[in-house]
């Protein structure tokens, strides 16, 4: 036997030995179901979407009209797509720079275990429990120019009522406000859990060293809940990229397509108009963006843990 052949034989023997070990047997037993589910429900739809994005296809029958990257060209040349990207980025920025600090501020006020704090935590968390569609409907009543709370407010100030959700200048701001209201409780709860896990002695030690309340937060609490802030930020970014079901009952993307997010854009211009190839192209672009965020997050997390 030549040297190369003997090395190959010993390698295959060691792989076989690994598979026969108890760890190997566990892998053989546990991996196939997970692999099958992942393939069926994640990998295959992804590849399908990527495939369909290369066709002009209405969703019926087999896609035959191959158009190459033309769907992507159309998407990238569509002004409303860029408007939806801009809107998504606004939501993302508001989530990261207004919603998370707000959630952290409130978490710092209510994280200690007292009956009053428990009540406040419940109240702040309630919007998150409500279904998105229900939240959208509730706020559409609030913003209603005829009978809503906003209308009453304007009237009480002696102003003419404004139909906020029908106004190009105000509609997306209103959506952003609802997103802020709906999800800040979720982030607050993540921060509350993290803050409760910070040992009390560390806060006391900081106080003894002369740290004021703000300095305890800045130098002790925030660094120690860094991982939770990272997770929260990740959820905020992914949630912003996927924002859909609050927008539909509030504005359905209007007025004049000014309040679309990437997903409502996909839904409106891809699904409802039976342009599955076009919609798939938007989906692929959204997927690439989400993967980019995930890789960035993983890198940051790994860097932080080193």
């Amino acid at each position, binding site marked *: 036997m030549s040297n190369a052949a003997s090395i190959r034989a010993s390698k295959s023997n060691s792989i076989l030995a690994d598979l026969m070990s108890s760890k190997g047997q566990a892998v053989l037993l546990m991996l196939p179901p997970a692999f099958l589910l992942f393939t069926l429900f994640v990998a295959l739809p992804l590849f399908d979407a990527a495939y369909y994005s290369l066709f002009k296809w209405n969703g019926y029958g087999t896609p035959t009209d191959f158009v190459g990257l033309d769907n992507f060209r159309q998407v990238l040349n569509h002004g409303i797509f860029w408007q939806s990207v801009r809107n998504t980025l606004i939501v993302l920025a508001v989530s990261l720079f207004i919603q998370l600090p707000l959630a952290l501020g409130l978490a710092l006020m209510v994280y200690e275990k007292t009956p009053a704090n428990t009540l406040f935590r419940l109240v702040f968390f309630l919007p998150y429990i409500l279904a998105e569609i229900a939240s959208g409907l509730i706020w559409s009543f609030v913003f209603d120019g005829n009978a809503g709370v906003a209308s009453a407010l304007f009237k009480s100030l002696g102003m003419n009522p404004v139909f906020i959700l029908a106004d190009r200048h105000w509609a997306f701001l209103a959506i952003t406000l609802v997103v802020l209201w709906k999800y800040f409780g979720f982030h607050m709860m993540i921060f509350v859990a993290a803050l409760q896990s910070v040992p009390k*002695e560390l806060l*006391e*030690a900081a*106080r*003894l060293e*002369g740290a004021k309340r703000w300095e305890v937060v800045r130098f002790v609490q925030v*660094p*120690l809940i860094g991982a939770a802030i990272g997770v929260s930020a990740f959820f905020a970014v992914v949630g912003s990229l996927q924002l859909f079901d609050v927008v539909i009952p509030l504005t359905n993307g209007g007025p004049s397509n000014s309040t679309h997010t990437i997903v409502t854009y996909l839904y409106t211009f891809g699904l409802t108009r039976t342009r599955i190839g076009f919609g798939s192209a938007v989906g692929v672009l959204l997927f690439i963006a989400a993967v980019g965020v995930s890789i960035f997050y993983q890198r940051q997390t790994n860097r932080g843990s080193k």
Partner: protein
Amino acid sequence: MANVELSNINKTFGAIETIPDLTLSVPDGSFTVLVGPSGCGKSTLLRMVAGLEAPSRGKISIGGRDVTREEPSKRGISMVFQSYALFPHMTVEQNIDFGLRLSKTPTKERQKRVDAAAEILHLQPLLKRKPAALSGGQRQRVAIGRSIVRNPDVFLFDEPLSNLDAALRNQMRVELADLHERLKSTMIYVTHDQVEAMTLADQIVVMNAGRIEQVGAPMELYNRPQTLFVAGFIGSPRMNLITGEAAAKLGATTIGVRPEHIELGAHGLWKGRLRVAEHLGNETIAYIDSELGELIVRINGDQKMKTGEVLQFQFLQEHLHRFDESGRRIP
């Protein structure tokens, strides 16, 4: 340096009165140890001195200054916690100079103080490490270093050696004694370990159920316990406490005799059967089931004994302690 005066301190948590009414004087430069069983209020008392708990009533003075309502950082104290309370995201150096950075101490001065503390505590090679990369003893030294750099008037220690293994605890005990000798600062130290109390303190405060049982020098407490509680708490193995006829004959409700003050021999007045003997090399501890109840006897050196053997013994009369029905010492 400063003395600490606690006057009529009361602490109540909801409906539970942890400390009813306590007055204590901690002399300037002393090493005072608060000792007592779990839940006796010693840590609560220390936290009140630190300013981490406010007394429900009473007054706390440090160096003649009323600090009862003063912020912890303004009291001139520093505290070492049982859990060390080191900031895990900071290096040893950043942990030590945290307070100095907050108080905006000039960099040169800060560096000087950190270097001095690191030298005293042998921390120089560890300054750039994070707490997770340190052993228990090293972490404890960093916590002490953080206290030292602030030049406090009073050092407070809350069971600082409890998380260390026996060997390291002995070593750190010696280091703490050295530190007190070197700094001559007032130190208040909480422990439930009476060996720490006996070896470190110049003044021991024995606490029970939020009250002070006795205050005194270690040997004073050992030789002249004023209450049954102190008699039973100070000393290891514990003092033998005997009630009944034998005590009544001596005009007491209870008599106490330390294990080393029982003499074995053929002329002994009392008899007992050896239940078990512990051979420690330098001494032997014998547990005897006697007609006076279970007794512990300490014998110098390694004494060969057989389980079940009948032994005769007597008490060294000059070392007997007598207590009345309320548990107070009869002079």
